């Protein structure tokens, strides 16, 4: 049997992951046609490459169907409850940087900190009769963050895309979204709260705490971990 390594199946994340392992003496490559999700591993025995969507890798790790997996640390925190009891961070890989942040309209000159947001939310609810809306697709992380920070009187509204536009269209009062350069936020007249960083995400190699292993698989895993450490 083999150690299963889950890697994002397309795009820059896949290429950078291949490079990262390549530099550490583990060759990952796709085989067959461009459209076929088949792959091979060189340089280490007993390892099988599984190409998956980055957003499915947390679930597969938690179920123990793959032993190792590369995905964004934000996705693991979003998709898994009590994530660190289900998976373990092996290596931060140094690419795929993105910050999950809370951003409000730039015209809110009175709101710079979460405590301002909380106070503004209370006044907003009194004025408008409903709780201030935060557009996001990162519900769990944003909710846990705001609870820990003691922000009340808000509601999360789901936004799976074009989140920065929701404020202008008045379907939300502020947003919680991933940004790398802040360019899109600025273009949409939004600003990041000074203490509004929910999570600093990057591509990370995770190990499943749930996957079963034979003695032979344990040896393969140890060999991989030795090469990359």
């Amino acid at each position: 049997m083999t150690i299963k390594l889950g890697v994002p199946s397309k795009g820059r994340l896949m290429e950078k992951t291949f490079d990262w392992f390549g530099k550490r003496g583990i060759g990952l490559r796709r085989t067959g046609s461009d459209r076929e999700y088949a792959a091979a591993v060189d340089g280490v025995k007993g390892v099988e490459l599984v190409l998956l969507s980055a957003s499915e890798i947390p679930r597969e790790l938690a179920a123990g169907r793959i032993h190792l997996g590369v995905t964004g640390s934000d996705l693991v925190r979003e998709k898994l409850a009590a994530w660190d009891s289900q998976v373990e961070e092996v290596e931060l890989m140094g690419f795929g940087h993105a910050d999950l942040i809370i951003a409000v309209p730039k015209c809110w000159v009175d709101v710079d900190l979460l405590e301002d947001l909380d106070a503004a939310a209370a006044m907003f609810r009194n004025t408008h009769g409903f709780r201030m809306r935060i557009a996001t697709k990162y519900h769990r992380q944003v909710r846990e963050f705001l609870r820990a920070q003691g922000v009340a009187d808000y509601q999360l509204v789901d936004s799976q895309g074009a989140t920065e536009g929701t404020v202008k269209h008045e379907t939300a009062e502020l947003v919680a979204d991933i940004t790398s350069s802040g360019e899109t936020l600025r273009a949409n007249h939004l600003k990041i709260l000074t203490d509004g960083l929910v999570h600093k995400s990057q591509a990370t190699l995770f190990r499943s705490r749930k996957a079963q292993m034979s003695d032979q698989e344990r040896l393969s895993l140890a060999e991989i971990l030795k090469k990359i450490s």
Partner: protein
Amino acid sequence: MIAKAKARSRAAELLAFFQSKGAQAVEADILQPANVLLDLYGEDIRARAYVTSDALRGEQMLRPDFTVPVVQMHMEHGAEPARYTYAGVVFRRQEADISRPSEFMQVGYELFERENQAMADAEVFCLFQEALSPLDLRAATGDMGILIAAVRGLSTTDRRKSALLRHIWRPRRFRALLERFSGKIKPPASRVALLQAEDAMQDASPLIGLRSRNEIITRIDALKAEAETPPISKSESFILDDILNLREKSPMVLERLRDISVDMPALSPAVERLDARLNAMAAKGINVDALDFEGSYGRTTLEYYDGFVFGFYAESRPDLPAVASGGRYDALSRVLGQGRSIPAVGGVIRPELVLELEGQA
């Protein structure tokens, strides 16, 4: 399967006990409209309750407790005074601890009574004590009304008081606000800059979103007024600390609070209510000299208790949550009653925990 059946029949016994004390048995829907619970508890309830939906009714929640539907039912067509009891499953989403059940039974007793609140508190507490007496549990008590009265009694602005009251169930934010208002923490640099700016609204363009220019100006004015308000005095913030740190037998607490209310007379009515409650409990045979009281008790539960709070714990099993808990929730009926309100007090027992302690689970 057998455990479930046992829990059900133990719950039926407890229900019968409350019925024998004059309570009317009621039922509640399992699916509750999500918006009512969300407006009451905020977004945090999503982490604790199961949310489901359909295309017609929208979001529904599997009931996380019975209190809200029972209060709603009473506000719609209840006569006064009223005593209700119920038994059924509640659902709690678990995200951190897999060993905690996501569905369990609750048997409750709720008393809606306008006239003698000390008697009502004592009645509910004594019924729970009686129902649980063979288990030899420790009773914990507190009174959110004392803390609320102390905040209202501060010699400072109404705006500060309502900010503190709004966060009374969030100890961290409450503490941060109190330190800010008493001058222990300096205002943040961005606020100082905003208040010093000649024209604060200069950068407020383009105006986007629903929150209007007027709302922003209103908040800046409020911040200006806040900056000019003198800090809450040391002696008054000590009083709040004193109350939060109380942890003694009830008569000692009463004595201490009497001393405190010499410095803060606004506290007196709440202290007299505590005294009346202890007397009512003693008259019903409770040994109040041995009754524990904690000033912070009830601050981290679902945020609707605003007076007497209690819980019963098995000291031999610190791993178990409270076997029973309850309290007074006068404000809840005001929120749900659309203009009407009635004082209410009640609590729940968890029959599965009772069985576990009885060695039958």
